[in-house]
């Protein structure tokens, strides 16, 4: 296969599908992956700008430049964009599509046209979400959770925003179905289940959650739409309904969705650490099993979002216990990653830097999550900035950094060009410092009692809010540097060979960028595990 090096920019320059139309109607998993990647990065930047504006408004108490209504609309939009358009599709749809079929030795996913449809649905949903800002009663002001009764009553354009969520959810389901089928049916000769790279395993666990949880969100948001449009209110107390049932159904999806967000990130980290430690992954099977355990146990803990909703004390107790249970598989992963590094021959390249920050920041976020998981402590910090800090540590410090790690790890493979490692490291430094200043301040001010989702606050919270806002600027400098470096590398970076990092999984055995059919004439035959560097002849 190494002889197969002919490269006229691989799938990027496929002559059979030229031009813009050749991209947006392509069924090649790599092109669809890149379509997703660029759409997702665009929405991430929009969401990040909205986040910066929110922090700017909170620089001083009182109205700085946003009214209460504008602030409500802005944090709703920030949440909807970041959750539904960036972090849920982020790693699976972009890097899953780009890398997973290659990792299992396939030439495409099981249903290529369905894959293209998924991307179109994603774009259609995004366009609907944007349309909802400028039509009807203006942008939604409910928060991304769309809680009833407010979401059923507000004059803002909630129905269209919910329809957008429905469509994007459908896209997510189709990707999930595609990935599960692909991993079951399209592994190449010798690619047994326990030779799958851990990234592919994490996508497998994620895809199952996408399939099993997302339909519940679909029916839940549909019921809110029905109440708004037809007046049939299954959650409306004046019609005998129960608003708490909305919260149950919403979190039956949205808590597992948290694992849709973080599991692929864990997969990225599990793939990166062995390569840069030059050691096989420690506890491969334990990491696999913990992914599946997270997918399973994570589906049983939704009630921990609802300790103060008026649920019965017994239910609170059970959900609190289960929440602690789900921390176990996460901790297993962390210990396995650290043990993989132990006595490794570590090269601290940018992908590893980002992956290591994931481990640290995810641990901080996860441990503060235990405070929220304990019902007695949660009651005091519920709906404060502590919660905001917590989930940004997990989501941005965790999944966000994993997404960045994946960019630094796989973009050289996809574009065949290397970025400046020095700039990548500098960008990482800014982001790491900025992120901690931002979200640690939020957590402290939250413990002191500052509630979330207010454009205004008491004067005594000023210092920490200013610090957080300054943190957001440092973070922004890092983000701009990182993206500028990567964008520059995509066009003008120095060319790299097939295997710049010394990985042993299949994607590193083919040219960079990969050819359209991935593997040339012969299907690859796998004779060793994804981290057996000796057998792969790399060590």
């Amino acid at each position, binding site marked *: 296969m190494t002889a197969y090096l002919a490269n006229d920019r691989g799938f990027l320059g496929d002559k059979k599908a030229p031009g813009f139309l050749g991209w947006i109607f392509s069924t090649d998993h790599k092109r669809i992956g890149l379509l997703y990647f660029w759409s997702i990065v665009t929405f991430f930047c929009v969401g990040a700008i909205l986040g910066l504006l929110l922090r700017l408004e909170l620089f001083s108490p009182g109205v700085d430049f946003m009214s209460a209504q504008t602030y409500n609309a802005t944090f709703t939009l920030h949440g909807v964009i970041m959750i539904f358009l960036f972090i849920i599709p982020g790693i699976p749809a972009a890097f899953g599509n780009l890398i997973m079929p290659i990792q299992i030795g396939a030439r*495409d996913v099981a249903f290529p046209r369905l894959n293209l449809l998924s991307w179109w649905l994603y774009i259609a949903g995004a366009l609907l979400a944007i349309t909802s800002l400028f039509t009807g009663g203006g942008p939604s002001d409910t928060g991304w959770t769309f809680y009833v009764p407010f979401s059923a009553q507000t004059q803002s354009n909630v129905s269209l925003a919910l329809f957008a969520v429905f469509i994007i959810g459908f896209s997510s389901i189709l990707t999930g179905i595609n990935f599960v*089928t692909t991993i079951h*049916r399209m592994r190449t000769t010798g690619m047994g289940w326990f030779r799958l790279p851990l990234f592919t395993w994490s996508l497998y666990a994620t895809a199952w959650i996408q*399939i099993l949880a997302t*339909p519940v969100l679909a029916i839940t948001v549909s019921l809110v739409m029905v109440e708004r449009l037809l007046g049939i209110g*299954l959650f409306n107390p004046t019609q005998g309904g129960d608003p708490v049932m909305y919260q149950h159904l919403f979190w*039956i999806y949205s808590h597992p969705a948290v694992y849709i967000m973080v599991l692929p990130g864990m997969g990225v980290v599990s793939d990166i650490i062995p390569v840069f430690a030059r050691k096989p992954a420690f506890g491969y099977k334990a990491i696999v099993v913990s992914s599946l355990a997270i997918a399973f146990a994570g589906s049983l803990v939704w009630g921990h979002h609802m300790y103060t909703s008026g649920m019965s004390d017994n239910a609170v107790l059970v959900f609190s216990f289960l929440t602690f249970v789900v921390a176990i598989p996460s901790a297993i992963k962390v210990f396995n990653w650290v043990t993989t590094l132990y006595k490794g021959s570590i090269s601290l390249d940018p992908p590893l830097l980002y992956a290591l920050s994931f481990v640290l920041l995810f641990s901080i976020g996860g441990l503060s999550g235990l405070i929220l998981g304990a019902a007695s402590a949660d009651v005091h910090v519920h709906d404060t900035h502590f919660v905001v800090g917590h989930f940004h540590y997990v989501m941005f410090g965790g999944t966000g950094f994993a997404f960045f790690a994946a960019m630094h790890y796989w973009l050289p493979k996809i574009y065949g060009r290397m970025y400046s490692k020095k700039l990548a490291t500098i960008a990482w430094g800014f982001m790491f410092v900025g992120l901690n200043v931002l979200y640690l301040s939020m957590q402290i001010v939250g413990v002191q009692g500052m509630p979330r989702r207010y454009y205004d606050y008491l004067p005594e919270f000023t210092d920490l809010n200013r610090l957080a806002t300054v943190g957001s600027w440092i973070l922004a400098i890092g983000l701009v540097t990182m993206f500028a470096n990567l964008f520059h590398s995509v066009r003008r970076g120095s060319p790299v060979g097939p295997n710049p990092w010394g990985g042993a999984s299949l994607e590193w055995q083919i040219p960079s960028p990969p050819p359209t059919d991935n593997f040339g004439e012969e299907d690859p035959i796998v004779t060793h595990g994804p981290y057996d560097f000796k057998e792969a002849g790399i060590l």
Partner: protein
Amino acid sequence: MSAHEHKDYVGAKFGMWLFLFTELLLFGGLFILYSVYLSRYPADFVTAGAELDLRFGAANTLVLLTSSLFVALSITALRLGKTKQSLWLLAATVASALLFLLNKFFEWSAKIHHGLYPGSPELQAREIGETVFFNLYYLMTGLHGLHVLIGAVVIVWVMVFIRQGKVHRDDWVILENAGLYWHLVDLIWIFLFPLYYLVL
């Protein structure tokens, strides 16, 4: 692009089954609401449930079960190369779907005629649990009816494929998947029927 045209029947059916799971969970949310509200307003549910006409429900159950048989037979017919017979059986399925929807239309009309629809003055004068019951009734049977319609459209679409020769005795997985979808529509009704017409 797809130089390696690959046909994986097991994979295609596997994907369809996964999709059917998602449909079950879509209805699952409504079944949860049904069970919670039933346990909250058991007496009102029984009173309201008595208003439903068992004859309509039973007739529709019969229609749907028969239509599922038609689909199953049409798959066998196609595999045996009896294309014409297969098409007729599929047409019978679509006819059954329309019959089901017609029946549902009359049933709903009768209810609405009696003033039993969401937000009606008649319902507002009654116990609140009955409102919940009829809200659920219209939403669940409505969503199911929508699925009947989608299923019928899918079957018509497969019929076009058979006519064009894209689906034939050696390549019938699309028909089988459409059949699976139709059985799912049938299956959900098998749960709705007792919940609304029999147990209350």
